[in-house]
């Protein structure tokens, strides 16, 4: 069997609900353990061992939540859009489930990034909110997520809701770069950045390692939620199928 055939076989297996349900069940404990380990390393390293910033003091430590959340907000939207495309093209139900569960998690990460950003902004910038380019595009991203969730919940038929919301996610994915750069451009035209961001390119190594650990922990956390969500969604969606009946009678 060639590599290409193996890859296709794997792809088809992954798309099979029964196989994915079992695989997700096996993966789940491992990913929970890994999440906890990396989060502990990241939190202890970031909150205890990393030196205080020379300008911001201990206040900078909120980046250990803020920066990974902001990274995740973009990443999850891309995962959502990619899975929407797969669902629209190949009609793989599993992709729709991934997109569906990603939306709420992504919106939560975006909200978390906004809240931690404004908590950080109060002591550093002296105000809760600045119409800064990054904050504004993060806010618009939250609106895009809310629109997606709103459209999904407004349509009763699950399959149709997946298609309609999938189209919206793709339109959003095309628009995100345009919105992002137009906002950056708007901001630079209006005012010069009056507050210094992290313009020093090098960040201390014992500050950086906890940050990367936290970023990994957030990704793993997303994976855990995704696995749990998709397992329960699969059970509900496939409740009339043979494998679910066997699963219920055997347990």
């Amino acid at each position, binding site marked *: 069997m060639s590599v290409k055939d193996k890859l296709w076989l794997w792809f088809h297996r992954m798309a099979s609900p029964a196989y994915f349900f079992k695989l997700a069940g096996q993966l789940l404990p491992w990913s929970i353990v890994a999440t906890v380990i990396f989060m502990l390393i990241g939190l202890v390293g970031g909150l205890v061992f990393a030196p205080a910033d020379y300008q911001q003091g201990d206040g900078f430590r909120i980046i250990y939540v803020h920066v990974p959340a902001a990274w995740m907000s973009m990443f999850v939207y891309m995962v959502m859009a990619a899975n929407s495309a797969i669902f629209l093209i190949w009609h793989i139900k599993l992709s729709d489930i991934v997109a569906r569960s990603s939306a709420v998690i992504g919106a939560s990460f975006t909200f978390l990034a906004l809240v931690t950003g404004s908590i950080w902004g109060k002591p550093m910038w002296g105000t809760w909110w600045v119409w800064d380019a990054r904050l504004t595009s993060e806010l618009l991203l939250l*609106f895009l997520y809310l629109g997606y969730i709103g*459209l999904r919940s407004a349509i009763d038929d699950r399959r149709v809701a997946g298609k*309609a919301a999938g*189209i919206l996610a793709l339109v959003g994915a*095309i628009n995100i770069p345009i919105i992002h750069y137009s*906002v950056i451009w708007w901001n630079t*035209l209006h005012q010069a950045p009056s507050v210094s961001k992290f313009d020093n390119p090098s960040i201390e190594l014992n500050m950086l390692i906890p940050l990367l650990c936290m970023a990994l922990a957030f990704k793993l956390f997303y994976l855990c939620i995704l696995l749990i969500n998709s397992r329960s969604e699969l059970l509900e969606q496939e409740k009339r199928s043979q494998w679910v009946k066997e699963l219920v009678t055997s347990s």
Partner: protein
Amino acid sequence: MNYSNPFVAMLFRDLRIAFRQRAEIMLPVIFFVVVVSLFPLAISPDPAVLKSIGPGVIWIAALLSILLSLQSLFRSDFNDGSMEQILLSPFPGSLLILARIVAQWCVTGLPLIIISPLLGLLLHLDAHVIWVLFISLLLGVPYLNMVGAIGVALTIGLRQAGALLSLLVLPLYVPVLIFGSNAVISATNDLPYNGQLLWLAALLVIATTLSPFVISSALRVSCSYR
């Protein structure tokens, strides 16, 4: 197959239908004028203030009045079943839908663009600034119609379509709002504004080429669950 005939036929059909209900055509324009004239009452009649807020006010009012007019875009076609016929016809659905949107733009967007210089005068904008405002609306408003139509196509069969439509569409309007009002503000400050106008033109080209396909597939989805 000749594609220009069905396009033209569809365009004229829609225009004819629209001109039979003249009162409905006027509503978005009247809304536009009323909203703009509220701002001096709420903020300040001082010409200097109006000059600085004018571009943003006119752009936001244009955006809201397009949003208001979108509600009726596919409504009657969807309710009486012509939408299925349009999608089932041997001609590409996206082409016929593009004609529908162009017709909609002629009756709601175009009057709004034509009347905008008058509103610029009311807000004490200079003559050359009004010219830039006119061009920016000419390039930007069709984009609002195109992208708004995507939202309409997705929400057409829903009960609470109005509020959801604005949530879906307004974030996508942000780039055009930024470039449009920014071009006018730059003109007020005697700064170069060609860049913003070119961006508006680029966005319009993207929207015109891509959105008809998105809209027709969204309409297919919406027609499948009525």
